[in-house]
């Protein structure tokens, strides 16, 4: 271990109790139990407003943690993450909406949490993720050859292209008959345009959201601790040195990008099916991308727990500061500038919360 060129970095990356804890099926099972607890115990107890807040938190956690894989692990600067969210959201939403129309005559929710409709929904989420991943591959492959700041512009441009294209789509059919009249290709071009895509059935609930959150967190953590992860972090430290050591940086960067896009797509799908949501391209533009970037930066680029905590804080804060909405963005912006000057590593830097001194000491490091 000490002979490895990453020995110095490995100190922060050495698999310890936490990695052992994430091995195997146990953590996923724990996650499922937590999600179920949230759905059946916590949800009803706190009421609809806070349940909705918990769902929003979950979605933002997925977005922040997935972006962290790109911005944090590989140090590549992507500011088009909301574009993948939009792609996934629209793909999943269209799938559920049109299938519901054709199979059941209308976009209502079918069955309970584990009913037929839910199966469609979960499938749609995965499809949304895959479509977003494909987009990630299409964007990543050519652009990740470019230097950091160019990638930022390309991703921003990508987000804008998605927005413009979505705004050009036609109105969504309202009745099953209208839906039946459309061919599959036409369905893909009838996504609501700039007025938005409303009527997507409200399948998103605490259980599914937090199942996906668990999945995201586990994948992110295992990625970080794996050979992949170490390669990623080496790229971030010094891309040229990594190339010299034989790390195929482009391949790894593209992989990171695709994985991140997948989860952004899933988050988009969850968002699309949330109660009260109308999918609108304007809301999934660069402002949303910036929101996510802020979470990753404040949490510490490379830290999963940092991104998670920042996502929680920055979802809750606007609700708490509802009154001072004008000043919210100004405060965010100032925070961003100050953090970069005073504490650029954010909350946790590259480390996880359990690697910080009070916790690490207990494990005898």
């Amino acid at each position, binding site marked *: 271990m000490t002979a490895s060129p990453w020995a110095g970095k490995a100190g922060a990356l050495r698999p310890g109790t936490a990695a052992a804890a994430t091995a195997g099926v146990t953590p996923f099972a724990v996650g499922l139990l937590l999600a179920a607890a949230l759905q059946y115990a916590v949800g009803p107890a706190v009421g609809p407003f806070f349940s909705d807040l918990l769902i929003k938190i979950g979605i933002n956690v997925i977005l922040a943690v997935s972006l962290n894989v790109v*911005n944090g692990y590989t140090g590549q600067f992507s500011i088009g993450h909301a574009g993948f969210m939009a792609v996934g959201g629209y793909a999943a939403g269209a799938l559920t909406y049109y299938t519901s129309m054709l199979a059941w005559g209308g976009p209502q929710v079918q069955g309970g949490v584990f009913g037929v409709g839910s199966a469609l929904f979960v499938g749609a989420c995965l499809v949304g993720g895959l479509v977003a991943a494909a987009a990630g591959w299409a964007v990543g492959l*050519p652009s990740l050859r470019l230097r950091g700041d160019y990638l930022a512009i*390309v991703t921003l441009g990508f987000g804008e292209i998605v927005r413009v294209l979505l705004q050009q789509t036609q109105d969504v059919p309202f009745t099953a008959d209208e839906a039946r009249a459309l061919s599959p290709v036409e369905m893909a071009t009838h996504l609501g345009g700039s007025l938005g895509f409303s009527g997507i059935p409200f399948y998103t609930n605490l259980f599914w959201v937090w199942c996906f959150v668990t999945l995201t967190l586990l994948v992110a953590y295992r990625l970080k601790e794996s050979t992949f992860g170490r390669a990623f972090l080496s790229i971030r430290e010094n891309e040229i040195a990594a190339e010299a050591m034989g790390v195929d940086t482009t391949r790894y960067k593209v992989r990171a990008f695709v994985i991140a896009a997948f989860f952004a797509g899933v988050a988009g799908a969850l968002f699309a099916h949330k109660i009260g949501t109308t999918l609108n391209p304007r809301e999934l533009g660069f402002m949303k991308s910036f929101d996510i970037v802020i979470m990753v930066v404040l949490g510490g680029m490379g830290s999963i727990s940092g991104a998670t905590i920042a996502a929680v804080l920055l979802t809750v804060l606007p609700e708490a500061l509802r009154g001072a909405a004008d000043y919210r963005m*100004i405060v965010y912006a100032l925070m961003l500038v100050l953090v970069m*000057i005073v504490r*650029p590593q954010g909350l946790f830097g590259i480390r996880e919360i359990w690697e910080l001194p009070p916790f690490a000491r207990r494990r005898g490091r």
Partner: protein
Amino acid sequence: MTDLLQTLLNGLAVGSLYALIALGYTMVYGILQFINFAHGDVFMIGAWSAYAVAAALGFTLAGGDPPGWAAVAVLLSSMGICAVLGFFIERFAYRPLRSAPRLNVLITAIGVSLLLQNTGQLRPVFGTQPQSMPALLPDTTLFQVAGVRVGLVDVTVVLLAVAMMVGLQWLVFRTRFGSAMRAVSHDHRIAALMGIRVDTVISFTFVVGSALAAAAGFLFAMKYSGLKQPADATWVLLGLKAFVAAVVGGIGNLQGAMLGGLLIGMVEMLGAAYLSPHLRDLYVFVLLIGVLLFRPTGIMGSTSVEKV
């Protein structure tokens, strides 16, 4: 034919605006190797401060024809305001990060951008409502050529932009300070060994770039009198397109920025006229991706191997 000429004229005018903004991006990138995301917002502040100064001087849309000096006074005021703004942004947000990783400065630039947009929207500043700029330049038709109307506003836009570009060109290539600017953009450490005050050069670059963006803002307000509110997406898009112009032309290269601006203006107008007006934002980004894939250093850029 008339339509084509009209479209080309529009492209020329819009392209001139993009070129002026692109110069600011390219100068800063040349000197610091960093994309100043907040530059497009300086352009927005330029347009809005032109409006605010005009209003403070008593010129409104409803009032009568303003005197000729009004346009000059408003232009110079907004250039001055943005020059100062550019100075402070560099001094307090970017200079502390001079030796930090590029990623950090990019993030700070985003922060500054958001700060400008949202502070601009505060009630005591510019407010959240769109406004209409009074016509400080009367839109008289100068002449008609092949059925195409050539108005005073468009001619002013193009001539003023060209004059500024020529002035900048002279400054950078024919003055002592200009050679200091070029030396710093090559290698600021060796430039310091020549006795050049690098911080002063960098500050000046920001000041000049911001003044040019303000001029573009003023000209924009002259041409399209409707000003959307400061945090509106249209401003960010305009700034972004100007950045694309700088990249397409070859970032770090002055002539590239000017060429790129004109090219982007033409592409946008031609696309809107002959393909689809709804997709006007798209053409520019497609062009960007094309350039980055096939000639990443831009039209006038040169390939240089990154030194380790």
